[in-house]
């Protein structure tokens, strides 16, 4: 099997380092701990189509990161791109918005089960911060209960005390509880009676570096009741899961109704906008808040959103990615077992998390992922992966072939764990 060469990527990265801090900053770059070792990974793309992207050196990758989520229908989806092109003929970023903003809001209200209204922004983090402001404005309270390990963006309130740039006042009104621990949550509410504005969580627990956990069967129902009894706004951060579990919202998927739901990623198949959906009773609070940005009401991303959501509904993309994810993860488990490797799969199949558990350092997992990437299957080390609906059975078969060879390499290279015979 061919092993990738990244000569052109490395040259471009050298250029980038001279003029851009860290070369590629943020989670797409090699310094965030999800691309270990960096030399196994390509740095820049030259083109993308469907389930693939190609790097500068011409290497093709079956892409299981999907741009960290936005790619749900396949890169360069013809229907989404055509809608954008058509809108661009009329205009994009203008002084007053186009009416496709209303069309999109109506489509969201019609699609997302809990939604009575839609407030648009650009990034997922815009909507999680807005959700807290809505909750505080509506309740007149100041505290927020968050689940340890959950990611809600990069705003100061989402980060930990001691992180660079974070001061005590940024997080002083945060209360942290463990995932799936209803009793702890109930205690936190009791200890902060009439002070908690919002409980925010992802619909299931999908932090990086650890096995993901689904909600206990009664968890969300009990949380919903607790929030209702205590006048606490229940906000779901559906930025990552949104439209990959159910087009109706992940709260609907798990059988409860949230007060606020934050969407981004899969909304526009890569065209950038985000949305906070809410229930009617919170609409006045949302209206009262000053919260905006230069590009937030641009029309081209809205055109993408309309085309994307319509296509998700038309083809049943949420079911497709779940099914493809099940096929892939089942195959990966079987191939791993064949080599005597303990590969743990967790989370939902459309955005599964995986970890080789044969050492406690994740070292072997990092080696295996690197071997897969060098052979054209793009995983990252410790983030959940993503499925898009353009993935084919042939792509899954190719992935399993690569995984098989990569397992053989790491088994051979780690005799202290797997024995000399592998």
């Amino acid at each position: 099997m061919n092993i990738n060469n990244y000569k052109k990527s490395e040259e471009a990265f050298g250029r980038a380092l001279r003029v851009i801090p860290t070369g590629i900053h943020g989670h797409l770059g090699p310094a965030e701990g999800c691309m270990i070792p960096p030399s196994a990974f390509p740095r820049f793309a030259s083109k993308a189509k469907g389930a693939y992207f190609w790097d500068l050196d011409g290497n093709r990758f079956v892409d299981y990161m999907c741009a960290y989520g936005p790619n749900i229908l396949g890169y360069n989806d013809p229907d989404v791109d055509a809608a954008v092109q058509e809108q661009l003929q009329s205009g994009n970023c203008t002084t007053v918005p186009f009416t496709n903003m209303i069309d999109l809001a109506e489509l969201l209200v019609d699609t997302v089960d809990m939604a009575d209204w839609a407030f648009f922004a650009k990034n997922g983090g815009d909507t999680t911060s807005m959700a807290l402001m809505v909750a505080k404005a509506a309740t007149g309270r100041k505290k927020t209960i968050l689940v340890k390990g959950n990611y809600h963006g990069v705003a100061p309130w989402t980060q930990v005390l001691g992180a660079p740039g974070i001061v005590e006042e940024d997080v002083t009104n945060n209360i942290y509880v463990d995932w799936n621990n209803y009793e702890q949550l109930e205690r936190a509410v009791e200890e902060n009676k009439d002070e908690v504005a919002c409980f925010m969580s992802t619909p299931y627990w999908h932090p990086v570096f650890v096995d993901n956990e689904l909600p206990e069967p009664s968890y969300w129902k009990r949380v919903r009741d607790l929030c209702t009894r205590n006048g606490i706004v229940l906000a779901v951060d559906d930025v990552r899961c949104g439209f990959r579990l159910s087009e109706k919202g992940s709260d609907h998927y798990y059988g409860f109704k949230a007060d606020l739901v934050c969407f981004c990623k899969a909304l526009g198949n890569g065209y950038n906008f985000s949305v906070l959906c809410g229930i009617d009773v919170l609409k006045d609070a949302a209206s009262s808040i000053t919260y905006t940005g230069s590009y937030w009401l641009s029309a081209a991303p809205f055109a993408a959103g309309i085309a994307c959501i319509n296509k998700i509904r038309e083809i049943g993309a949420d079911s497709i990615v779940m099914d493809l994810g099940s096929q892939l993860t089942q195959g990966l488990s079987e191939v791993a077992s064949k080599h005597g490797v303990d590969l743990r799969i967790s989370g939902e199949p459309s955005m599964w998390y995986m970890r080789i558990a044969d050492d406690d350092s994740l070292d072997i997992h990092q080696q295996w992922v690197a071997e897969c990437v060098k052979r054209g299957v793009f995983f990252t080390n410790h983030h959940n992966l993503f499925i898009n609906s353009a993935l084919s059975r042939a792509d899954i078969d190719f992935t399993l072939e690569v995984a098989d060879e990569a397992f053989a390499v790491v088994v051979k290279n780690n005799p202290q764990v797997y024995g000399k015979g592998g």
Partner: protein
Amino acid sequence: MKDTLTLAHINMNVILRNIENLCRIDETAKSLVASDDIAIGFRVKNGPSCTLRFSKGECEFIRGTARGRVLLYFKSPDHFNAMVEGTANPIPLRGLFKLGFLTGAFKELSALLERYLRPSDEDLADPVFRTMSTELTLYTAGYAIGEVGTVDPMSKGIGGSMPTGEIVLEVANGPSLVIYRDDKRLVVERRRSDSSRAAMTFSDMDSAFAMLTGTIDSYSAIAQERLRLRGFVPMLDKIDKLLFKVSEYLK
């Protein structure tokens, strides 16, 4: 924001502790204390304590207890920090007639250590000096991770939540530190580990020097694999956050 108590811990358990390393790797330092056999205790009210024991050209740093023929007392962490800055004097509780060591050999050791830790461009042109300066700077940064992660009010939550296991901070084929959390604190030891759960490895002394002196940022170093990460990344992420805080104290 520097916390006075944390700074006192750094001045004692990092800077004074490094005299032990200085006497191990620098011939001038060894010769300065070659004929001395003396222990000096440092005791800070509401702060840390330690003993520096000199014998036959070697130095041993003993953490947490102030014993010796010379015993120096400081009425507060501020007082101790001022002594390290050279703007205050200790209160000798014992060994009044041995204070010559403090004003002689010990003072010269301190000056030598400062020269390594705050080197001039001229000194750095010498490759041997540069290597030793880098090694001592690595120990300084590494030891300070332990103090910041244990004492600093903003950072002890990060240190206290460090996952179980050993983290190696090392230069390939060079000096190595092992960091781990015990019941009380974040411990930093100068040794190697065959069973580390995570590692930060500088590819060579030049890369270590570049990053420790701020000529290259850690993210760029990682991207270029001049700093290689391996293993359980959440531990390294916490070390990275603590190192950021360390840099505030060591400025």
